[in-house]
């Protein structure tokens, strides 16, 4: 891109963590996404962590309004978005203030000096200018007048005529992206194509952004600020075709796939809520798959409509986050009683109440497990990574349809918005989940053939699913206790006791229909087992690697099914001296494990709205191993 080529050292790194940080209006998410896209195309393994405020436009220039995007990429398989950035791009003083504490000594820091005005310093809470007061002495600081150079570059470019100063200034995120692309030898064709497509209706804006992007790249080439550039070779990953995918997108695709695999139309009844709304947005696009989406008047109507659709032979799905689950509880109980398939997707966020809408947490496990009146068991499935949300959605649909039960799918904000390379499955690898409805009477009564809606399959204990429109099988179901088999209203004490136990046994029996818990114990001699569930898989596995690299032994097991647990769970837990359970809650899985197996597991818990760091978990593991 430039005729001038300087002598520079190029260092090969095995992995890099970069973080973009700016005002929530600065386009940091887009910048991070696009850098990720370049990185995926290049063939690195990667993991991302977007971190943004709940306010759409928080007060500009304040630390509260800072939006960040972290990307970890490598030449080998990685498990987390990285503990600490190797390079931080700070678009203004507030972004610097909010992120500097995470930056290790010696890291690269790229700051937009144009934004360090006295007004912005004051808004960020800086009494003196950190660029000159020694605050940044321990970092390699690159002072870049990003805004002014962007404006100059845009105005000097043909085709960007008609772009005013404000619009030109808005392209400064692309200048930053260009500079980072240069620094890490990223391919640039994809970004230019992306900008042309995104701004197809306003070619002058596209030209301005491309001009800024190229200017950033060329600036790196010509400035003397950077003496080193970095290369991270493509990762050696399992062969196949990959795409980059976020958890919510993978989960949406998993639901579309579940419709095709079960042969049932998908009906999504949902009410918008962060961080689950993207699933509603995504599924609303896929009408050609016969997917019906219904934006209901509230959370209750969302699940009610889904349950009504299931009664009619659709696969009903509702998507929400913790506060929405609270509102849906009564209908989940009804679904338990009706024994109809239903998938309840809970993208967990910080709680209680409104809590931290855009931050992650795992504190809805006990709500999913117990948050209903009466004995109301519901199977729980939890994905471990963004791509795994696809398979977990299919598994939830499998259990829901096979066992005629509501099923919880517990994802979280970290999985929902984080992304990773995803090895595309082939059609043959997907399970056959075809469902058959009951069409014939299943009982002979005094007056001849009858249909008994609660006459169970002896193996699965699932009841028959006969949908309206099936002649001769007209029946009524409801939330009042029903007689075993026949399904008429029954207030008989012994019958109720039997029905409660049957519903419990049905869900418990799923333990025989799920894979056993697997243990990763390379040496086979570990005495400490670390047990996790959901999105902590990556950080826990990364922590284990670090510990093993030091010559210590640790075993790792990760639960995908939280209710019921795999049949061998107790046996595995009891075979280790110590069991450590790290969770982003105050010990909810630990409570269940202790109650179920009487194993005195050790908890490691934090609820900071962010995923665990690998180094932190490694430290905890070492402590537990050495104690």
């Amino acid at each position, binding site marked *: 891109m430039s005729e001038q080529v300087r002598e520079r050292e190029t260092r090969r790194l095995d992995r890099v963590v970069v973080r973009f940080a700016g005002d929530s209006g600065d386009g940091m998410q887009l910048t991070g996404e696009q850098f990720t896209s370049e990185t*995926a195309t290049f*063939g690195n393994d990667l993991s991302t962590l977007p971190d943004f405020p709940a306010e759409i436009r928080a007060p500009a220039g304040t630390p509260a309004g800072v939006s960040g995007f972290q990307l970890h990429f490598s030449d080998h398989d990685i498990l987390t978005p990285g503990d600490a950035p190797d390079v931080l791009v700070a678009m203004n003083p507030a972004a610097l203030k909010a992120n500097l504490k995470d930056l290790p000594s010696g890291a690269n820091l790229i700051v937009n000096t144009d934004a360090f005005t006295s007004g912005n310093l004051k808004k960020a809470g800086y009494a003196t200018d950190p660029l000159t007061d020694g605050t940044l002495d321990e970092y390699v600081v690159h002072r870049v007048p990003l805004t002014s150079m962007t404006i100059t570059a845009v105005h000097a470019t043909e085709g960007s005529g008609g772009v005013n100063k404000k619009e030109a200034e808005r392209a400064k995120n692309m200048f930053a992206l260009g500079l980072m692309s240069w620094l890490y030898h990223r391919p640039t064709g994809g970004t230019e194509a992306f900008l042309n497509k995104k701004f197809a209706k306003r070619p002058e804006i596209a030209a301005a952004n491309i001009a800024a992007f190229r200017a950033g790249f060329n600036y790196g080439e010509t400035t003397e600020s950077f003496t080193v550039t970095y290369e991270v070779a493509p990762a050696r*990953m*399992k*062969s*196949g*075709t*990959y*795409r*980059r995918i976020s958890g919510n997108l993978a989960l949406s*695709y998993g639901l*579309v*796939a579940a419709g*095709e695999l079960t042969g049932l*139309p998908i*009906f999504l009844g949902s009410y918008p809520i962060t961080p689950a709304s993207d699933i509603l947005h995504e599924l609303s696009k*896929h*009408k*050609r*798959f*016969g997917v*019906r989406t*219904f934006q*209901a*008047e509230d959370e*209750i*109507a969302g*699940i*009610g*409509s*889904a*349950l*009504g*659709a299931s*009664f*009619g*032979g*659709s696969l*009903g799905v509702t998507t929400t986050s913790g506060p929405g689950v609270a509102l849906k509880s*009564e*209908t989940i109980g*009804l679904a338990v009683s*009706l024994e109809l398939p239903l998938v309840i997707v809970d993208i967990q966020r910080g709680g209680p109440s409104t809590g931290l809408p855009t931050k992650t947490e795992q504190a809805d496990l006990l709500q999913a497990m117990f948050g209903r009146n009466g004995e109301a068991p519901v199977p729980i499935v939890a994905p471990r990574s963004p791509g795994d949300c*696809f398979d977990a959605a299919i598994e939830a649909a499998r259990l829901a349809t096979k066992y005629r039960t509501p099923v919880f799918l517990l994802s979280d904000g970290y999985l929902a918005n984080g992304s990773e390379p995803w090895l*595309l*499955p*082939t*059609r043959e690898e997907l399970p056959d989940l075809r469902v058959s409805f009951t069409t014939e009477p299943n009982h002979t009564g005094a007056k001849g053939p009858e249909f008994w809606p609660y006459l169970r399959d002896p193996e699965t204990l699932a009841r028959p699913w006969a949908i*309206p*429109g099936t*002649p001769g*099988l*007209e*029946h*009524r*179901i*409801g*939330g*009042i206790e029903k007689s075993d088999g026949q399904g008429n*209203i029954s207030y008989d004490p012994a019958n109720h006791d039997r029905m409660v136990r049957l519903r419990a046994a049905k869900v418990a029996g799923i333990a025989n229909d799920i894979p056993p818990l697997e243990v990763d114990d390379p040496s086979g001699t570990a005495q400490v087992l670390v047990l996790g569930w959901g999105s902590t898989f990556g950080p826990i596995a990364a922590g284990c690697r670090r510990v093993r690299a030091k010559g210590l032994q640790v075993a790792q097991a990760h639960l995908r099914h939280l209710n019921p647990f795999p049949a061998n769970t107790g046996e595995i837990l009891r075979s280790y001296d110590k069991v450590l359970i790290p969770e982003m809650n105050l010990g909810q899985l630990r409570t269940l494990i202790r109650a179920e197996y009487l194993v005195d597991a050790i908890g490691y818990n934090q609820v900071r709205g962010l995923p665990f760091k690998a180094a932190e978990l490694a430290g905890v593991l070492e402590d537990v191993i050495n104690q």
Partner: protein
Amino acid sequence: MTVTTNRSGISNRLLDLVPAAPGPQSRKDFTSDQEVRWCPGCGDYAILATVQGFLPELGIARENVVFISGIGCSSRFPYYLQTYGMHSIHGRAPTIATGLATSRPDLSVWVVTGDGDALSIGGNHLLHALRRNVNLKILMFNNRIYGLTKGQYSPTSEVGKITKSTPYGSLDRPYNPVSLALGAEATFVARSIDSDRAHLTSVLRAAAEHPGTAFVEIFQNCNIFNDGAFDPLKDRSTRDDVTLRLVHGEPLVFGAEGDKGIRRTDDGGLAVVSADAPGVLVHNASAADPSQSFALSRVTGDSHGVTPIGIFRNVDVPTYDEALNRQIVDAKSKQGDGDLMNLISGGETWTIA
């Protein structure tokens, strides 16, 4: 989907999507084997008998009829009909029925609810079902009291009602269900009386003929906790003088001698005048603007000494379920059926050998 041909005159473009009954049906075909367990003398018995007597008229396959209810005395209704049915949870029947009706255009979906179920705990769902115009028939039994919880005042109880929970008299002002439904721009709104079988049947018929949400308020006597609430409308000696029977296209005239009429007042309301006075209105249930229907809903026994029954509003506008299913048909015809593997491999991909 089967298109029916053997109906007794009841038809609309959505009902035509429901398979026809294989032959003539009788009340017995719609009667389940369950023992009816309302209090002796309850108005619900009369409504049940009328509905069971009316359903065969529809000429649709029994297995394609679904009754969904919430919680309350009225919500036991589905158990007594030999159709598909669901006795769900308090106030939520419209949500369940909405999911069922939108995903199954081949069904005739009915909601049975009461004044507490529909207007109190389920008020929000009722409003949204009405504004969306989903193809549902909502029968709301209004007895102006809570029966199943044993006699507390309801959202339609009159102010000052002495009940178990209001020994000094209830304080909150009641809803007028017809005004509420019209305010939500419901496309079909009617009122009838449990004991008037012929009138109730005619209203049910019109509701069934209406494509979209039909809201039917049925005055229903609770002889245990609020006995006689609608006696003036039922007593042979008084009823003609206090009941205005709405007939589309006919003058708004009532009274044993047909001597009273309804006229607009200067402030936009309605007043009772002599039937031969100038300006007596003609009822127009199909007006696009619901203003006159709303004004009629404000005519009550308390305020005007007369209660209108019949169809307040009946307009044909596109339904939510038709529009949703049209989007699916259009998407499939324009883009073809979805291909799962194409979908998931969309976006940028790369291959590692």
